[in-house]
């Protein structure tokens, strides 16, 4: 157990380091960029508590062999001022712990489908609804550690 309540019950069971900057972010806005398993490989994603779903980089399906027939229609999301159309999938991911226990989750994922000429300029995003909403999590910006655990 990594963090606990005063009565000893676990709050967070895993802890992971995070990057706090995107290299392309000239404004140096602080981020929480953590490592996650998606499918059978790891990648990085930004914790986005104002967002919905796991929003994947549009090229992630090239690494995952997703079955298009298992997706749900067409959904539209506005991501930082840009409107993206894509598909919803059910994916299994894992938050990776450096200390404690990693956590495997089944989440709703949005896979953008880019129109010709449309650009993708974001990392993958871990939204609240459909992804992180039933986890406990905490951030220590002093040591850049992201704590997480099941409810």
């Amino acid at each position: 157990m990594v963090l606990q309540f005063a009565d000893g019950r676990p709050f967070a069971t895993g802890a992971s380091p995070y990057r706090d900057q995107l290299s392309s972010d000239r404004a140096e806005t602080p981020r929480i960029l953590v490592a996650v398993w998606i499918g059978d490989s790891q990648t990085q994603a930004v914790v986005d508590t104002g967002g919905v779903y796991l929003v994947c980089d549009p090229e992630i399906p090239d690494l995952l062999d997703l079955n298009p027939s298992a997706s749900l229609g067409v959904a539209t999301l506005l991501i930082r001022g840009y409107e993206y159309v894509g598909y919803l999938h059910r994916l299994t991911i894992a938050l990776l712990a450096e200390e404690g226990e990693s956590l495997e989750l089944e989440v709703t994922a949005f896979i953008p489908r880019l129109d010709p000429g449309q650009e993708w300029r974001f990392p993958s995003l871990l939204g609240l609804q459909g992804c992180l909403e039933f986890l406990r999590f905490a951030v220590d910006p002093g040591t850049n550690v992201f704590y997480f655990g099941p409810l």
Partner: protein
Amino acid sequence: METRLLSDYAETTLFPALMDSTAFPEPDRVWRDFKIAMADTTAVFWIIVPTVERQERRLPSPEVATGPSKTSILPQTLDVTEDREEGLAMLEIAAEAGDETAFVQAASAIDWSQRSAADFARTVRLALAAGAHLMARKLANQGHWLYADHEELAKMARILAPPRVVSANLPPDPSVRANLEWIRAHAAEYRGLWVALKEGVLLASASTARELRDQLPTTAGLFLTRVI
């Protein structure tokens, strides 16, 4: 002629509780004068009050703000001669306008216990278009509960279900820090490229994820990311 006042829908401002980069879709449509929708053979007629004909999108400067706020306005007056689709037309309007609040209010006013499986499926699709993601989940779940054999509702309910913890006791991965540290140290050099790492060591880089995968005998267990 029945007149419904929709003043509750006007001047609705949404502020996500914890704003960051993602928000729900927002309309570009400017409402003008009149709009007519046909539902089967029944005309549904909306009168739009000209003084409220605006849709605003206030996007933040990416340099200073972490998320959008949005203001949306739907028609204040709805004249309905006969709505044979019993409320679904209102959902269509809200979805077309991308107005989550109006959609949720309209959907909440419908007695879903008597609706068909097709109505549920259609409304879930509209909810996703309106940005009403929680309502989409709720209706998919309710529709699947009522029509367990309906394939599309079953898929909707499965994909939109709340996230579920599959396993809470997986072993830690000590390579996490090394991979993130490599990205931090080499970001400028590899910006925009896809890279494959293993325990903080670069294995391959490429312009696209597909090209990266083609360079590697397997991607299993590797750290794969676009450097941003």
